[in-house]
């Protein structure tokens, strides 16, 4: 029984190409402990250690580089900003649910929120006090360090200026005493003037340095203050969130608004019932607009801003759309190229010409072309259908999305096409002989022999294409302003908030991890169709 489990585990590990887990399973079963431990050391411990080393180096070097957007974020800061992104996402989700909440659940939630607000009040007061205290402490520290530094600077500056004035005065005096024909003295005068200028410059740079030092002290982080401020910010943020939540659960709630609208409508209707003559028309108009407003409100959704997880999903969706578009074009053409030399010769100039073109060039072209199809995208039936579709409606597919997908398709289809052509063209001669001896027709030969034989190479191509597509997508989204990871990065860059830099670093890891997962999935597929039983995994 246990051995069956072991074989099953090993088979799963083999299928998913997670070879580094194998020694662990074997060790658990006591197989060759020495070798297994060594393997674990080699394939798991070493990479982990190297990664930790990387984190440490990063932590050490990051604060040393100061940029316009603040310091380079350390791992800790990056992780914090990741958490704040997720918190934001969670809160927006809550707000949406609050908007849509109804009945008893709503009442209960409202009560809870208000209670929490109450709890926060004293905490906030505390935090504010702490901030004040810290500020005071900071001021005190500054007085000790900054003021003298500043004073020193001022002194130095003053002294330099004084000296300069004196030198100039002396020079003027000297100048007055020089005759017209005393060239030697004139020369001396110039030399001395030059010396004076140099001295002034030196002195200036000296006292500038002092100023910088003083400024550095001023700007230096005062941990106590920073921590107090951070805590206050968190509390303030939560407070704000709770206030909004309360709003969503009470007056802003959809149910509430619908009820409200209904009441108004009823009132209008009552009025209408009792009115006559000329008053009827404006009333009718009001009733009509009230009705349609009510209908809209009943159907309305919470205007949720795009959070990172939502953008991740949209990006992944976009890359798959582009990937499938590209594969649907690349595979048939690749098959034809592999089957017919003439066709391959015909396609070669196109492949050679268009393969190296960068996505950054394709994107504007696709934006224009796709824009041409949909002059008024918001009203076009294509998009309105999609936006109302059940699962994918919230993605809000727009021309920018399509243009990004098209760019992904355009750049990633080459790998699949070339690999498919190669796979089809290089079917083992012996397999073809089998087909010849059996006198298989064209179609049976294609589907039973040529395509299955080519499948491993096709999937190798698909895997490369997906990888390329993922890279291309981020760039395309950034340029097309299509909601997604690319746009997130660009927004943060333009934002210039204190944690923007950290958020961008978070995106680096997110993109990398998603790319890794996509590659892994493709490896599993590749494994499944390969018949030699092994697949290069890099």
């Amino acid at each position, binding site marked *: 029984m246990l051995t069956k489990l072991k074989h099953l585990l090993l088979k799963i590990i083999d299928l998913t190409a997670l070879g580094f887990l194998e020694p662990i399973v074997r060790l658990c079963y006591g197989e060759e402990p020495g070798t297994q431990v060594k393997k674990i050391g080699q394939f798991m411990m070493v990479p982990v250690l190297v990664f930790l080393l990387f984190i440490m180096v990063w932590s050490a070097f990051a604060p040393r580089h100061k940029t316009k957007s603040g310091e380079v974020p350390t791992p800790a800061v990056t992780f914090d900003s990741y958490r704040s992104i997720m918190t934001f996402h969670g809160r927006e989700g809550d707000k949406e649910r609050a908007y849509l909440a109804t009945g008893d659940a709503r009442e209960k939630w409202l009560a809870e929120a208000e209670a929490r607000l109450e709890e926060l009040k004293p905490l906030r007061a505390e935090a504010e006090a702490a901030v004040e205290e810290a500020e005071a402490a900071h001021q005190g520290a500054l007085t000790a360090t900054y003021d003298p530094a500043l004073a020193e600077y001022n002194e130095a500056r003053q002294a330099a200026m004084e000296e300069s004035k004196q030198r100039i005065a002396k020079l003027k005096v000297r100048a007055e005493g020089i005759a017209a024909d005393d060239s030697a003295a004139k020369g001396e005068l110039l030399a001395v003037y030059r010396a004076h200028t140099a001295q002034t410059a030196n002195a200036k740079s000296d006292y500038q340095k002092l100023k910088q030092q003083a400024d550095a002290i001023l700007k230096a982080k005062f941990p106590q203050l920073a921590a107090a401020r951070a805590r206050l910010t968190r509390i303030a943020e939560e407070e704000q969130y709770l206030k909004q939540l309360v709003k969503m659960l009470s007056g802003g709630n959809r149910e509430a608004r619908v009820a409200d609208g209904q009441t108004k409508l009823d009132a209008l209707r009552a009025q209408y019932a009792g009115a006559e003559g000329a008053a009827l028309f404006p009333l009718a108009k009001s009733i009509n607009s009230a009705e349609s407003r009510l209908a809209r409100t009943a159907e309305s959704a919470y205007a949720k801003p795009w959070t990172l997880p939502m953008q991740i999903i949209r990006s992944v969706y976009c890359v798959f759309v582009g990937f499938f578009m590209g594969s649907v074009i690349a595979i048939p053409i690749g098959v034809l190229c592999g089957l017919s030399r003439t066709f391959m010769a015909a396609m070669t100039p196109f492949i050679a010409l268009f393969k190296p073109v960068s996505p950054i060039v394709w994107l504007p072209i696709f934006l224009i072309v796709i824009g041409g199809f949909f002059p008024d995208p918001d009203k076009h039936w294509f998009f309105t259908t999609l936006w109302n579709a059940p699962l994918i409606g919230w993605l809000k597919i727009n021309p920018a999305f399509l243009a990004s997908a098209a760019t992904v398709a355009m750049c990633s289809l080459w790998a699949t096409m070339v690999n498919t052509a190669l796979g089809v063209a290089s079917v083992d001669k012996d397999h073809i002989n*089998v087909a010849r001896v059996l006198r298989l027709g064209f179609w049976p030969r294609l589907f039973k022999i040529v395509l299955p034989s080519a499948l491993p190479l096709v999937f190798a191509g698909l895997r490369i294409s997906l990888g390329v597509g993922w890279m291309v997508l981020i760039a395309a989204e950034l340029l097309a302003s299509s909601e997604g990871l690319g746009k997130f990065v660009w927004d943060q860059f333009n934002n210039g908030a204190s944690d923007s830099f950290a958020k961008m670093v978070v995106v680096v890891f997110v993109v990398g991890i998603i790319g890794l997962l996509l590659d892994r999935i493709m490896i599993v597929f590749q494994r499944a169709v390969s018949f030699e039983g092994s697949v290069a995994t890099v």
Partner: protein
Amino acid sequence: MNKRYVEIVNLVKAYPNPVGDPIRVVDGFNLNIAEGEVIGVIGHSGCGKSTVLTMTAGLNEITNGNIVVDGKEIDGPGPDRAVVFQAPCLLPWMTAAQNVMLGVKRVYPHATKRQRKDIVAYYLSLVGLADAMDKRPREMSGGMQQRVGIARAIALKPKMLLLDEPFGRLDSLTRMDLQDVILDILDREKLTTMVITHDVDEAIYMSDRICMMTNGPRARVGQVLDIPFERPRDRKAVLAHDLYYDLRGCLIDFLEKFEKKKHTDQAEEIAAPRSAKEPPISTRGDVSARDATLTNPLTLAVVSPMA
């Protein structure tokens, strides 16, 4: 019994030569194979044995001459001449049963699915793989793969079975096993067979007659040796037979002779320039001598007048 079931007449295979005349790998190969006969073909490497076999199979284009099987000249490859190659070349994405089914579907288009499955199972059990039907090639040893190759070939119900050094890649024990498998099948199905092999003992064990090819280029039949052992063959009896050693010696002598002859073959060619003066030849019916099973007046070569 049709003694001319397979006729290979004046077979020539020439390859174009970028720097001169085409190179004739096989030049004037003549062989008749009787129905149900097993012909072994031996010769030095590169002498053109495989070329002759692939031309018979229709996988290689014939430059000159013809090959007639069961009264019809061959026209490209087909399931009537099934081939077993040295490398099994099973389709690796199919199981053993599916590989055999590929041929069965072709040859029994009107059978039901059930019937076809039975046929596949029958042939796989003939080669001793009844319990490996659903294995894929990568899960099978070389010997097992070759068995599937053999099953796939005979399932085509071919008129002629062509084996191109089928056991070349296998170890001797597996080889002996598979020799018996094939002999067993041949005794059962009475297929006309051409076997190419490097192994002299294998040739003697398996064949009714052995065709010894001269060296290439311009290879043709050197000698043909009758193997008088009766069927079904018993390995021990064959090895112990008085004649075994002499037969073996004859084959080895031939091979050794052409070891030395390799480079002087051109010079030794009997020059018989063709002339149009003498009329071509005819054959007659059977004429038998008193205590032999043969004779048949043979067509003379076209003889030149002396200058």
